[in-house]
């Protein structure tokens, strides 16, 4: 990873009235990496996104993006940023090409440059045959691709995406990630926010956010390794009952996640035999795995991930 940071955030806070949304954050994003802000709703990641995208002004602290100060050189920063918002930003009454054309003009593209870039983006994202269609006629996944085409039209060096997979089916999500990986090989730094744990797994580094602060910042594997132990998932007909019984019998913490019983313990393989012997009739299937990012979130914040709103 190159040493020069693409983004430097130093002691940044942001308040909406009395509510502190971002609380004295400091971190760096390296050039050329895929960096994910992971956190439940209300964790401050969207506020951070709005600050970095220049949508809202910086209240306190300093941000440098690709060497430009966010306060003093906002026009330079905007030129180098590609922004894909969570809420759609396309004009539905216009065609795909028309949307791209307006975007190009807002970023100062000349007519020939605009033509070339539009074509390149439409081809890259598999939209070439839909360019004359109005956006209102496109599916959600298609629209998302147009948003990406729009964000990348002016060849930004840094792409910011807010919850990019919202509303995408798994196939479209896989396509999105394939495209993001491809962009990274072209030298684009990618920063995205997500509340989806399985999505964060694909990043180079993850910043876990909780109540406006960084709960953790590392590579996915390092984060998972930091929790220690293995994660054991048990499929059963009555997970609540089994979780309680396991807890009582082995004096450990067993939780119910998505209808399955889960526990984290070192030497998971030994636990499996013990569990199966203790509850032979209740267990349908057992899976042994490494800790998930959810486990990391719980370990670092002391809160359940999905109840993490505050």
């Amino acid at each position, binding site marked *: 990873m*190159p040493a*020069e*940071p*693409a983004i430097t955030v130093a002691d940044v806070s942001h308040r909406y009235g009395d509510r502190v949304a971002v609380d004295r954050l400091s971190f760096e994003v390296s*050039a050329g990496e895929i960096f994910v802000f992971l956190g439940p709703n209300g964790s401050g990641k969207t506020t951070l996104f*709005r600050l970095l*995208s*220049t*949508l*809202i*002004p910086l209240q306190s602290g300093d941000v440098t993006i*690709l*060497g*430009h100060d966010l306060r003093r*050189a906002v*026009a*330079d*920063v*905007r*030129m*180098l*940023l590609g*922004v894909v*918002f969570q*809420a*759609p*930003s*396309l*004009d*539905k*009454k*216009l065609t795909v090409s*028309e949307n791209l*054309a*307006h*975007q190009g*003009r*807002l*970023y*100062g593209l000349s007519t020939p440059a605009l033509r070339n870039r539009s074509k390149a983006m439409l081809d890259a994202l598999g939209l070439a045959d839909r360019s004359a269609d109005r956006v209102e006629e496109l599916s959600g996944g298609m629209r998302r691709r147009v948003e990406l085409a*729009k964000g990348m039209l002016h060849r930004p*060096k840094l792409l910011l995406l807010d919850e990019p997979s919202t509303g995408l089916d798994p196939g479209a999500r896989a396509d999105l990630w394939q495209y993001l990986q491809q962009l990274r090989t072209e030298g684009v730094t990618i920063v995205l926010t997500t509340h989806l744990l399985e999505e964060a797994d694909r990043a180079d580094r993850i910043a876990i956010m909780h109540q406006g602060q960084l709960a953790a910042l590392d590579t996915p594997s390092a984060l998972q390794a930091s929790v220690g132990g293995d994660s054991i998932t048990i499929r059963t007909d009555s997970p609540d009952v089994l979780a309680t019984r396991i807890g009582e019998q082995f004096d450990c913490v067993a939780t119910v996640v998505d209808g399955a019983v889960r526990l984290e313990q070192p030497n998971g393989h030994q636990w499996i035999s013990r569990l199966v012997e203790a509850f032979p009739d209740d267990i349908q299937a057992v899976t042994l795995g490494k800790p998930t990012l959810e486990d990391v979130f719980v370990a670092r914040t002391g809160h359940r991930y999905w109840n993490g709103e505050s």
Partner: protein
Amino acid sequence: MTIAASQPISALPVVLTLAQRELVRFFRQRNRVIGALVQPIMFWVLFSVGLRDNGQLGPAFFFPGTIAMILLFTAIFATISIIEDRREGFLQSVLVAPAPRWAMVLGKIVGGAVIAMLQALLFLVLGCLTMSLASSAAELVLAGILMAVISVALTSLGFVIAWRMESTQGFHAIMSVFLFPMWLLSGALFPDEAGSWLTLLTRFNPLTYGVAGLRHYLRFEDSTVLVDALPGLPVCWLVTLGFTAVTFVLAWRIAGTRTTGDLL
């Protein structure tokens, strides 16, 4: 690592592209186009038929005021689309673009003003064809230019009002307590009367000078309208241009502020 951004963005393509977008959107929404065509024709029919034998105040008196009304309502409705732009998310991508903010504002305003002008010109043409308009060609051209200036002023005013609004419902309240009275008190509906407090009140309304200017230019053979009492043409131009400058600068300034609507 400092990556140099390319040279600053020229404003004209930004203005043109955003103005063009307003027009394209307008023509793609059939009900808006139909409304825009029907309104001037309806007014023209009401004028030429309904007001023909209306004693001393004939169609000639109401003609310039109706143009002002068409400009007012169309321009202002065109700016309501800023609320839509915000709600539909289009605005957020404009706000993070490097183009100069004043160019974005001007593009939006020019687009709205052109739509208003199209409607008002249609009404003017119908009037020229069927009513006994005695204006010279030069006067008609000047009237057209004055209409364009008024529509920019009114669209800018609409922009200022709409910028901080999160719903179009709120706009209707403003419409009835502020914009409609503004038109009523512009000399469009009541002729000047010496010593009347109503007439005095109209003198504080910048739109009065636009309507008066149009009255000077749009003369009728059977005119019963006394233009002598109206503000003179230089004053009309001066006030209207000043009104336009003030509302545009306000629109530009207000567009630099953030609203909670950006955070939807």
